[in-house]
């Protein structure tokens, strides 16, 4: 330790007061504390702000019906994303049997369907209607990933389905 040694000088006469020398050392502990606090802060803020990206591959639009993907009716589940974060769903090709669910409970619906259908037949059709938000669509795509569904498609709803949704919405009072 480099303590400053204060030499007592004997040159001064007996009447001269000794001026007390203060140590030149400064306690650096608070400064170090502050330094490390800032370091921790910067480390945390830099890692958190990394945005992630979700891959999305869209199919080419074709007019050729031969190229359309054939889906087994028994294996299909159609999810219609409506307004007010409500999902309408029906099995097979039967919009009349439409049921309602929410984003929290839709996983159960999908998993139930997945468990009861052979993996090769399972096909999920996502139809976001004009009032669905972007968040709804992304959440649904994410849900496909979470539930490990490999075959799904995003399609526009048919006019029939629109009117059905509108009726249900009017009945339920969703704005």
């Amino acid at each position, binding site marked *: 330790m480099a303590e400053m040694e204060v030499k007592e000088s004997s040159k001064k006469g007996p009447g001269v007061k000794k001026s007390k020398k203060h140590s030149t050392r400064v306690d650096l502990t608070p400064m170090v504390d502050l330094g490390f606090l800032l*370091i921790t802060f910067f480390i945390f803020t*830099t890692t958190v702000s990394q945005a992630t990206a979700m*891959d999305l591959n869209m199919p*080419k639009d074709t007019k050729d019906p031969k190229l359309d993907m054939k889906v087994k009716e028994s294996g299909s589940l159609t999810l219609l994303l409506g307004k007010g974060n409500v999902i309408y769903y029906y099995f097979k090709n039967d919009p009349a049997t439409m049921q309602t669910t929410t984003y929290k409970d839709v996983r159960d619906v999908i*998993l139930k369907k997945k468990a009861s259908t052979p993996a090769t037949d399972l096909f999920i059709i996502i139809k976001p209607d004009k009032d669905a938000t972007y968040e*709804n669509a992304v959440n649904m795509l994410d849900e496909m990933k*979470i539930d490990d569904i490999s075959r799904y498609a995003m399609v*526009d709803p048919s006019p029939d389905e629109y009117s059905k949704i509108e009726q249900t919405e009017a009945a339920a009072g969703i704005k």
Partner: protein
Amino acid sequence: MARAKIKRGSTSVDMTPMCDVAFLLLTFFILAAQFKPASAVPINPPSSVSQKVAPQKNFLNVSIDKNNKVYLYMSQELKAPVLEELGKERNITFTPQEIKDFEQAAYIGTPISQLTQFDKLTPEQIKATIIPGIPVDSANNELTSWISATITVRMGEPLNYLIKGDDASKYSTFENVIDAFKKNDVYKYNLITNAKDVPQGSELYKRSLEEQKEGKKGGE
């Protein structure tokens, strides 16, 4: 008898080297930190379980804000050539000053017809005006022209197409954006999202656990 004197060491430690190290690290982290590019338009993207980090280079970013307005961000080096290419396609000649203004503008958020006058505005003036957004409806989808100009400039070099939508934006706007891409034969996009943890007990969670186990076995 004289007792053996035990020399007492000082308990105070010299903090100087530690302080040096601390501040060296601090400077390093401050300089190395990549701050979020201050986007002029606040957008709150949805969250997803995707772990992939968004590409930071060679990108074309289409942003949709909560009022369904579409903005376009592109890398700085692309700006001038893209504007010239767009001018060629649309038979508009831009003056060097206009190109310079365009390069300095943070983003494209207007119809092409209003582009030059909009680029002249200072950031303060932009805050005060209502930004119209790039038209993307099926009747007049100008985003298509922007994308095609960018593709021509890149001459087949790969480009990352980022779409950053706000939670509250309508799906129909997103669909229009996708349509603009599809018209240019682009079918692969990256949707910018916030990272979210995989829900416990879900299929994906189970699978990733299994993969981890297998990975460990393979490593042994």
